[in-house]
Structures are given as C-alpha cells and as structure tokens.
C-alpha cells in the first residue's frame, strides 16, 4: 500500500521510482541470505546490510544508466 502510494506520487511528479522488493526476494530465494539485518542484530529485520546495499546499488546503477542514455 505504501509502495503503491510512492509509485503514484513518483509518476505524478515524473520521478524515477525503484522498488527493490522483488529483487530482494529473488536474491533471498537464490542465496538464502537476507538483505536486512546484521550478525550482531537480528537477521532478516532492521536496516539493509552489505549484500542489501549491493542489490540496491545494482538497481540504482541500472536506473541511472537507463535515464542518462
């Protein structure tokens, strides 16, 4: 619901919207390693971790390349 709101808002203001949920989910199914949480907190919850940033970085890079072409 929150994602739908942001998606609508981005479209209305002609902003690029990146939803990493599917990518995070498919990465988890592939590697069984969550993209949230750390070894010193609870895995699978909280802030995104290094692999999570990697996934997000890839998505951002692809979006920037697509936009600047």
């Amino acid at each position, binding site marked *: 619901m929150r994602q739908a709101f942001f998606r609508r808002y981005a479209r209305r203001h002609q902003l690029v919207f990146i939803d990493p949920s599917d990518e995070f989910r498919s990465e988890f199914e592939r590697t*069984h*390693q969550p993209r949230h949480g750390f*070894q010193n907190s609870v895995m*699978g919850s909280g802030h995104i971790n290094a692999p999570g940033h990697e996934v997000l970085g890839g998505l951002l890079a692809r979006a920037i390349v697509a936009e600047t072409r």
Partner: protein
Amino acid sequence: MIFSSFEFFVFLGLVLAILSQVRDEGARRNVLLVVSYLFYGWWDWRFCFLRFGTTLIDYLVARRIETASAPRRRRAWLLASLISNLGVLVIFKYMNFFIGSLAPLLQSAGIEVPHLKIILPVGISFFTFQSMSYVIDVYRGSLRATRNLRDFTLFVAFFPQLVAGPIVRGSEFLPQMDYFHPLKRSNLQAGMETFIRGFTKKALFADTLAVYVDPVFAHPAAYASLTCWLAVTAYAAQIYYDFSGYTDMAIGLGRMLGFEFPVNFRHPCRSLNITEFWRRWHITLSSWLRDYLYIPLGGNRSGRARTYVNLMATMLLGGLWHGASWTFVVWGALHGVALAVHKFFTERRGPSRAGEGGLPQALLSWAGTFVFVLITWVFFRSSDFDTARVMLSKMAFFDPSGVRWYHVQAITVLVLAVLLHVSAVLRGDRSPRLDLGRPLAWSGLAALLLVILLFAPFGSNPFIYFQF
C-alpha cells in the same frame, strides 16, 4: 513481579526497610508472610486463596498423621494430602493436556471436546512438590509436624523461592525456624553477592542469548545447519544461565533475610556422563524425584529390569513435571533411556577409577554427554514436534542451506561461559566471588552494572522456569 525487574527492586528495598525497623522475631515473620503473599498476589491475587487452601490442608493433614496411631489411618491421611496436591496440579496444569491428548479418541466417538480456559498458577509445580515433601516426611517419621501455622505458611509461600524454586524441603526450612533472623550486615553482604551473580547471569547472559535463540526456534527451516547448531548450543547456555541465575537470586534473597536454601546447580556442563549431569542440574528436583518417586517405586532394590523401569517412570514424570506437553515427555524419556543405558554399562563394567582412560576418554565422555544433552534440549525448547523435527533434520545436515546467522553477542557470551566454566572447574567447582567486603569490589560492581546497562537487552524477560 520478576526478580530482574525494576518493580521488584523497589519491593525488595521496601521489605528490607520495614524489616530493619522490626525487632521482634514473630513480627518479622508476620511481615515476611504478608509480603510473600503480596508478591504472589501481584501476579493474580485470586490464587492466594488456592495457595493458602492447599497449605492449610497439608498443615492439618501432617498433624493428623503424627497423632494417628493406626498405620491405615496414617496412610489414609497421606492419601488425602496427595490427592489434594496432585488434584490441584492436574486441574490447573494438566487438564487441557489430558483432554487434548484424548481428543482424537473422544471425537471419533462423537464426543465434543472442550478447551477449558484455565490459568496456570505461577510456581504451582514447585510449591506442590515442596508441600508434598513435608507431608511425606512427616508420614515417614523423618520430620516432626510443625504446630505453628504461620511458620508453615511462610515455608510454603516464602517469596524468594515461591515461584521457581529451589525446591526447599520442610526438613531444610522448618528447623531454621528455631532461630532468630534479624537483618545482619554479613548476611546482607553475602546474599547481595549471590543475588548480583544471579542477576548478571540472567540479564547479561540468558537474555542476550534469548535474542538469538528465539528467532531461530521460531522458524528453524529458514536457517542454515550450523546456525541451528549454534542456536541449540546457545539455548543450552540460556536455560542454564536463566534458571541458575534465578536460583542464585533466590538463594541470595534468602540469605539476605537470614535463611539458607539448598544448592541447585553445580556446573552441569562439565558432566562426563548423564548420571553426573543429573547430580549437577536442578539438584533439588532430581533429588526430590529420587527420594519421593524413584525410591518408593523400588529404586534399584527389585532387580535390574525393574530398576530400569523405575528410572524410566521417574524421568517420564520428571519430564511431564516441566510442562503439559508431549515434547517434555519425550525429553524426559530420552533422559530416562540414557540413565538406564549408563547404569547398565556401569554395572557391567564396574565402577571406574578416577582418571581411568586419561584425558582422551574424559574428553570423549564429556563431548558425548554434552551433545546428547543438546539434542534433548531441542525437544524441551520446541513448541511442537514439527519444530523439533525440522530443527533435528537441520542439525543432521539433511538440508544445510538457509540463513547463516552467527550472532556476535551470543558467541561472545558462549566464549565467556566456557571460560567461566573452565575457571570454576579449575577452582574446584567454585564460581568467582565478588566479595563486597573489599573496597575494590565496589568498583568491580559498578563496572559490572555498567556492562549490564550497555549490553543487556532492554526490558526484563520472564524466567523460563516461571512457566513450570
């Protein structure tokens, strides 16, 4: 009101302040009785009546047993007490378990099975066993029935050991009533040291491990095999620090108030066999089961086969004592089988001499015992058999993939636990002491409190054994 909560510290401060102003021993015991019932009533005041009711029955029954001369009458009074105590236990703790277990049978016969809304009174398993041991001891003639209802009620309801033991017997507590119990500086100091040791075990060790253990046991299928092994190891440490921490706090509180409670743990993780484990783990329960169940069943006096049956029956009931669930029964059964197997081999081989086999054999015995105890904890901790099955299949590396989570704090606590255990073993089973008599110890205490404040998880988690 749990011992590691802020409200308990306020409660304890008030109790000590009131007692410091009371000079008369009788008045002091009255205060202790009232605050003990307040402590229990804080959770649910309605159960104070249940508590007092069973106490009154056992008090009167014990006196009847002592005055009755005919063995049949004595037996009849004992039976009355056992029915009353076990009846309360069955109704409040096991009714839904029995109904639920019989449900498939009843439903196939067309009988609708209700689920009764019964609240489990806190500490019911502990105070029932405590009270029963008193009546049985009077029946056996090893203890005189007390003629002081106030003292007996205090014995059953004394707040330090009210909800989760140690299981103090009448023969251990009531003779202490022959003495005065003024607040003494030496007792307060020694008691506070023990209490702080228990608080540290609970707040810093057990609660930190719970942060790791709970999510893994909630969804074991999601985690990698090594993570499951680490979580089960962490649970073994958690339950030890949680329960022995509570026991230390109870013993410390008793000591502050001038009472001595029996030891409940002697570094069980160093055990070299399962028999030794039960001589070191929850000693007041294992000795209770031995004296009031195993030996009356015949113990080892009726042949080898009967000894194994008695051991199994004792451990099955010991498992069921922990909780109304088949997972606890399986846990007890596994320990029963292990005790029987150990007894079988010990009897065949004869008693081993100290140091026989050397270090390699000792290490092998320790590892075997430790891994066995770990595996049995899976049943103890799992909410159902499906969770236990998944956890065990993960531990057997049938499906090793999953989230690899090696919680830094849990590993730190486990390393500390190993170091503390090794240091205790090297010191002849003695734990490190704070010794508040030395000025330097207060700096140590301040540092310890700072560490707890910085690293212990927020909030106070209930003790695991409160649910039993």
